[in-house]
């Protein structure tokens, strides 16, 4: 029995349904989902073919945090608070770009909502346009590669720091490639009263130019290079990280994805790769990622 039914329209190999299903199943369906416009919404909520077995609402691209706040407030007012947890599933564009105002408002008012950002690092539903969470050097249709430009210039926005700046009780990152850890973190998060933020890295088969069977492998590589640190904060304190047993150079991660392949031939590519390596190294240093302890 799952609360996110088969027959949804996700691309083969997409990790989003894996994360979503495992989370809502872990709550035994006792949860409310507010969803932004985006990949998850479009694959699951066409009229007449809903995949959802939990109460679900989609309103707009940029407002799921506010809609969730409204659900939570209504449940309180109507004496139905125990009916279930209030969750948001939103893409990286909805989270870091267009919806960041309502998200900050929801965090600031500290609604009892678990906000889950499904981070596939661009507007993938509409065909790979750059978002604030697109990494540096990435090819998207709005950061194309040309004689002058080597893809996206600026680096990935630090949403974890933004969430922490709101003094949230629980902030964490995870990866679709570690589904048990995703479940553990979602369950852990809802133990805290108030707003929580969980950001889940999720490779996009079409946008990243990879094959479906590679999605978990590439998600793991993102972590093993240090480019996508998997961290967990409680009350602002870093309490746990997933340790990297064997560090991989960023090239290994970049070269197997179409969205980064130009970096190996573009005149500015070498510099970008160097910068990405230094970002990865800095993540490893900052979060003390090297080690042998394993997560669940």
């Amino acid at each position, binding site marked *: 029995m799952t609360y996110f039914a088969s027959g949804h329209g996700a691309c*083969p190999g997409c990790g989003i349904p894996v994360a979503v299903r495992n989370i809502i199943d872990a709550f035994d369906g006792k949860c409310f989902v507010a969803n932004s416009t985006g990949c998850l919404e479009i694959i699951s909520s066409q009229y007449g073919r809903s995949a959802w077995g939990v109460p679900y609402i989609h309103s707009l691209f940029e407002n799921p945090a506010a809609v969730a706040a409204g659900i939570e407030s209504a449940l309180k007012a109507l004496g139905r608070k125990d009916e279930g947890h209030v969750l948001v599933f939103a893409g990286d564009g909805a989270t870091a770009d267009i919806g960041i105002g309502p998200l900050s408002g929801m965090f600031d008012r500290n609604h009892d909502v678990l906000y889950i950002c499904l981070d596939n690092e661009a507007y993938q539903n509409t065909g790979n346009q750059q978002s604030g969470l697109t990494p540096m050097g990435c090819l998207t249709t709005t950061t194309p590669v040309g004689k002058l430009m080597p893809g996206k210039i600026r680096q990935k926005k630090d949403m974890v720091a933004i969430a922490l700046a709101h003094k949230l009780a629980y902030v964490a990152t995870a990866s679709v490639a570690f589904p048990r850890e995703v479940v553990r973190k979602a369950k852990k998060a809802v133990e805290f009263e108030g707003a929580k933020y969980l950001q889940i890295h999720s490779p996009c088969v079409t946008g990243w130019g990879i094959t479906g069977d590679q999605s978990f492998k590439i998600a793991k590589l993102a972590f093993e290079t240090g480019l996508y640190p998997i961290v967990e904060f409680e009350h602002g304190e870093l309490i746990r990280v997933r340790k990297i047993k064997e560090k991989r150079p960023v090239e290994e991660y970049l070269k197997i994805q179409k969205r980064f392949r130009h970096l190996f031939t573009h005149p500015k590519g070498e510099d970008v790769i160097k910068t990405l390596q230094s970002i990865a190294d800095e993540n490893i240093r900052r979060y003390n990622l090297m080690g042998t302890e394993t997560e669940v």
Partner: protein
Amino acid sequence: MLKIGLGGVSEPYLSLKFKTGDWGTHFPSVDNEKCKGCRDCEISCPEACIEVKKLNKKKFEVTFDFDFCKGCGICAYVCREDAIEMIVKEAYKV
């Protein structure tokens, strides 16, 4: 007559009527003798179409719902025992 839900509100689980089993070019095949029952394939399947049944203390049976399997191959990738192999469908053989 067409029935439409007030405000676009829909009944749950209607996606189950839409089979996605013909999307992929490959399908998984399992060697149940190798399976140790870790369930990594089951929890990692994007289509929720894998079930790992425990037959006895040591024996497990992995079944795929081919009505929905999109042939992505994540199950084969996550399998620690290399028990799952992706096989190209007859129609896609060149």
